[in-house]
């Protein structure tokens, strides 16, 4: 079994290694100017330097900190709200179009107004992240709860479930696949909102690191940053989202499309 896992990982990594080889080969063969695209070595060097003097860690820390905080607050508020709204038919009918509108608008579109309300920096960026996660998760939670067929609720009630029990044993598990889908989508918007906002509204963070490097044509820093961003998202996806989805969606079945 372990051998299979390793084999699968190797198969996955192989094309990426091939890509590295192609990268280096192309840069050398066409004598690409370092102001256009760096070779592998400068990127590695930039990476080592940035780790050594702590700047990379600082940027990663800032970005991850913002996204963690915004996401956590977003989920913690959105899920209970979505569940509460979903239990009453009139309330859910009222809020569904509203939440849908706001979830459709969520994230990047709020950058201008966020920087106006909160000024530049941590507050605005975290707000954009919170916004992206909150509306999308709330909307999906609402959808998930309303999609739980009344017979299930009735069944639980006639089996003696108290309201609290109904919530934890029927509503939450029933809505969980949708909630998880909402988290994935919301986090996707939030991540992009993070990078975009960091490019214009702050002086620390991965987006900032990329944008400021552009001014000096330091393409090796840009490419380093892009790779770091890619790896971070892959980590978030593999270590957080995929297990979450495996535990809920795959076990419990398909999710109704939002």
């Amino acid at each position: 079994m372990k051998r299979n896992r390793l084999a699968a990982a190797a198969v996955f990594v192989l094309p990426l290694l091939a890509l590295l080889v192609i990268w280096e080969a192309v840069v050398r063969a066409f004598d690409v100017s370092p102001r256009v695209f760096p070779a592998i070595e400068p990127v590695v060097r930039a990476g080592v330097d940035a780790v050594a003097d702590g700047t990379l860690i600082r940027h990663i820390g800032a970005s991850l900190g913002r996204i963690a905080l915004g996401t956590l607050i977003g989920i913690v508020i959105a899920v209970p709200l979505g569940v509460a709204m979903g239990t009453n038919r009139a309330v859910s009918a009222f809020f569904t179009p509203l939440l849908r509108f706001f979830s459709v608008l969520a994230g990047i579109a709020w950058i201008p107004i966020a920087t106006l309300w909160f000024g530049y920096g941590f507050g605005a960026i975290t707000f954009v992240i919170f916004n992206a996660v909150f509306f999308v998760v709330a909307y999906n939670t609402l959808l998930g709860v309303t999609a739980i067929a009344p017979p299930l609720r009735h069944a639980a009630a006639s089996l003696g479930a108290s309201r609290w029990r109904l919530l934890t044993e029927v509503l939450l598990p029933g809505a969980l696949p949708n909630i998880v889908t909402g988290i994935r989508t919301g986090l996707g918007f939030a991540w992009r909102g993070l990078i975009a906002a960091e490019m214009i509204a702050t002086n620390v963070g991965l987006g900032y690191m990329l944008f400021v490097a552009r001014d000096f044509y330091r393409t090796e820093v840009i490419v380093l940053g892009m790779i770091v961003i890619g790896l971070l998202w892959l980590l978030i996806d593999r270590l957080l989202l995929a297990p979450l989805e495996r535990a809920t969606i795959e076990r419990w079945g398909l999710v109704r499309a939002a």
Partner: protein
Amino acid sequence: MNSVAIAVSPWQRVWSAYVRSTTRHPALASLVPFVPVVALWAAVARSGLFPPVFFPGPGEVVQKFFTLMANGILPAYLEDSVVRLAAGTAVGLALGIPLGLLVGLSDRAHRALWPVLLFFQAIGDIAWLPILLIWFGFGLTTMIFVIVYTVLFPVVLNTVLGVRAVPLELHRAALSLGASKARVVWEVVLPGALPNIMTGLRNGLGFGWRALIAAEIIVGTSGIGFLMFDARRAGSVVEILLGMIVLGVLWYVVDSWVLAPIERATGERWGLVHR
């Protein structure tokens, strides 16, 4: 059995009116909830809870809407944004569907390209802006590239899903009815994958217009995103709110009344279940 007269509460009356009118006109159901929200907005704005510089009322926004429509700025910016998005989406589809077909149908292509696709998707569209700015400057090419990049991945990934979901027996049925391999792709694989491709398009557009706005904010010389950011620089909230509402309404309309029905129609009509 006697019918007992039970008093109907005013809330029930309201609910009944709501249900009746929305059944006759389903669009109403999407619009009615916004009325109290707008009313609330107006009330909060007028109350002076937040300084009007930060929180204008709906009245001002509407006024600004008419001003910008009249002097042609809003239509021009809107057109710019929409054209960029449409162009980027068209290219994204034109590249993404064939690529998705290839990766979905060929095991070798799948093994070679899937990890690459996942990694590049993870980098995300926005992270490409700095290097694109170096290569192409602050112009249309940069923006189109970002949109194409954004739309490409959901389209490719969903196409692959759809292609692989087409049952083997349908391939075989077509082959034994005389279809060549190429015709099988056109007559069986593409229609079979269509619901998933629609999902991919919908997701792609969702990320795509956000990427557009971000690009317009960072790169822009025109467009709704630029409108909003320029207004922010001038400290004028009204335009920002107007821009957000225009975007929201536009996307809401396109997604709910164009894309979602198409997605539903292809999936449901053919009785296909897809994710």
